[in-house]
């Protein structure tokens, strides 16, 4: 018995030591499905997009992520409506060509850029790139310096100037997603919590076929097929951030 117990303690001790020294090894073996091979992307079909669809998508996103409605210029926006003229500044000026588009509204959100300036500038890695292409936020690490907001060329980031809970009715708060605290930056996280469960983002679900979602690295995916068939544009491609959100026009 004595020898056995000693042996057990030895093995348990070594295992604990190994685990504490190389915790990543263990995590790697858990394996996210094809991590590193996936790059999630969206394609918004602007021909089918209408006000009703946009509202549904925005409500689904903001409601399920406890995004407060703040009625001033310190608002929080994850997914919102704006005109093509504003989403694509400089590209809609020439009325000769796509004149019907300039004042038409479309949806804008975080582009989950492949080369994101916000991640580059963050001094604490509170915003970082996931292996599946999502530009993530760690709300607990963010110091609220707002450097990422200056760096984002799409205005996709919001800062909690207020305590957001002041603008959320307690009966409307979903416990499925964390609320945030004042003094941190937030934005669309491409519904990472749903992707991890094998579901599609809320906006994609609510838009019922108007927004395509899938793996941009997989030529067989639905999104790649629709991108191969139709003409699509990205916001500010000249900046080299490589957005993962496409607009089918």
């Amino acid at each position, binding site marked *: 018995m004595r020898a056995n117990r000693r042996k057990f303690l030895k093995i348990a001790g070594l295992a604990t030591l190994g685990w504490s020294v190389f915790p990543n090894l263990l995590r790697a073996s858990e394996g996210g499905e094809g991590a590193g091979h996936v790059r999630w992307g969206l394609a918004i079909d602007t021909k089918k997009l209408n006000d009703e669809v946009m509202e549904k998508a925005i409500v689904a996103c903001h409601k399920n992520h406890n995004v407060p409605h703040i009625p001033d210029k*310190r608002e929080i926006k994850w997914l919102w409506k704006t005109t093509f003229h504003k989403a694509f500044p400089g590209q809609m000026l020439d009325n000769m060509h796509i004149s019907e588009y300039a004042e038409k509204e479309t949806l804008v959100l975080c582009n989950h850029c492949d080369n994101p300036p916000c991640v580059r500038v963050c001094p604490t890695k509170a915003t970082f790139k996931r292996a599946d292409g999502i530009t993530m936020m760690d709300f607990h690490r*963010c*110091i609220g310096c707002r*450097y990422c907001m200056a760096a984002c*060329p799409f205005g996709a980031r919001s800062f909690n*100037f207020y305590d957001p809970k002041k603008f959320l009715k307690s009966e409307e708060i979903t416990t499925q997603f964390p609320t945030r605290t*004042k003094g941190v930056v937030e934005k669309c996280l491409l519904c990472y919590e749903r992707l991890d469960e094998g579901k599609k983002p809320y906006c994609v679900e609510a838009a019922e076929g108007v927004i395509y979602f899938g793996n941009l690295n997989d030529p067989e995916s639905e999104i790649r097929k629709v991108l191969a068939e139709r003409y699509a544009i990205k916001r*500010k491609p000249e900046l080299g951030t490589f957005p993962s959100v496409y607009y089918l026009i």
Partner: protein
Amino acid sequence: MLEKAIKGSKLYWGWIGLLLLGVATGFFAYTFQMKEGLSITGMSRDVSWGFYIAQFTFLVGVAASAVMMVIPKYLHHYQTFGRVLILGEFLAVAAVSMCLLFIVVDLGQPQRMLNVLLHPTPRSILFWDMIVLNGYLFLNILIGWVTLQAERKGVEPPKWIKPFIYLSIPWAVSIHTVTAFLYCGLPGRGFWLTAILAPRFLASAFASGPAFLILLCYIVKIFAKWDPGKEAIQSLAKIVTYAIITNLFFLSLEIFTVGYSQIPSHLLHFKYLFFGLEGHATYAPWMWVSVVAGLLAVLILLFPQNRKSDNVLAMACVLVFLSTWIDKGMGMISGGFVPNPLEEVVEYIPTKLELLITLGVYAAGFLILTILYKVAVGVKKEVDA
């Protein structure tokens, strides 16, 4: 040497009391920000950096300008600056302290500040800014204190301080270069996306810092009854003259490039600042005052006889300070955010609480400056006697 700071006239203690009151007011205002978050400021989703970061940027320049005396003194053995150099170094200490305070009051989660050390991220320019600013603060305290101590004892400064002094020269340039890199490396912010931002920052720094130092020399002469020396002030005046001309020249280079190329993402910011955009023109009068003050200062400073008159020189220095402060402390930051990336115009106007907090930080900086100057001048007088 610190004991010199606790012996002073009624005027000295009155001034200290006034500054402490300023610090207390600022702190009181800050408690509201702690409670209500940055919502008490005029900043918004669109203009996410405001008065705090602008003051930080301006003061980095004031701090860096000490190098304009270190170079002549230690690389060219220009002994005239030996007498006033300590004032420049202690001004740098006070200015960097204010910079650090402004960063802290700007943070949404200041209690998490040390995350920058806990998760060091060299790809972020903010990480490097933290290193260069703290390093510069350390260098100036060390060099200032050691050289002053040696002077008091009537001996040469120890040899080991020399490498630190030489290091402080590129280090001074680095603090303002890295601060410019914070802005000019951002895609999609056309106003800052220009390689001349760092040189422009340095030129404006070498104008505003020495101009402020000349004013401080006059103040010391009047209130502390210690004369920094006419020649030192005259040499500083020449530096201010060159620097303000260079600064305006760089501004004109910028305006040519942006104005002639007419690329909207760069041009719109200048249009907003100088003429207004979509009916919003809050900053236009200020920006014109900045340009006119700068030009007027050049006109005055160019003529040696003007510089030789103390009153005229002091007035020119006020103009230089005003011009560079408006340019950097007001226009430079909010101008970069308006229009926003969607080319919408959302203006920024600081709130009263925000200005009170700013005042508190300035009061804290002047408190540090006053105490250090009291020590320095006390030692100088002792040596002179």
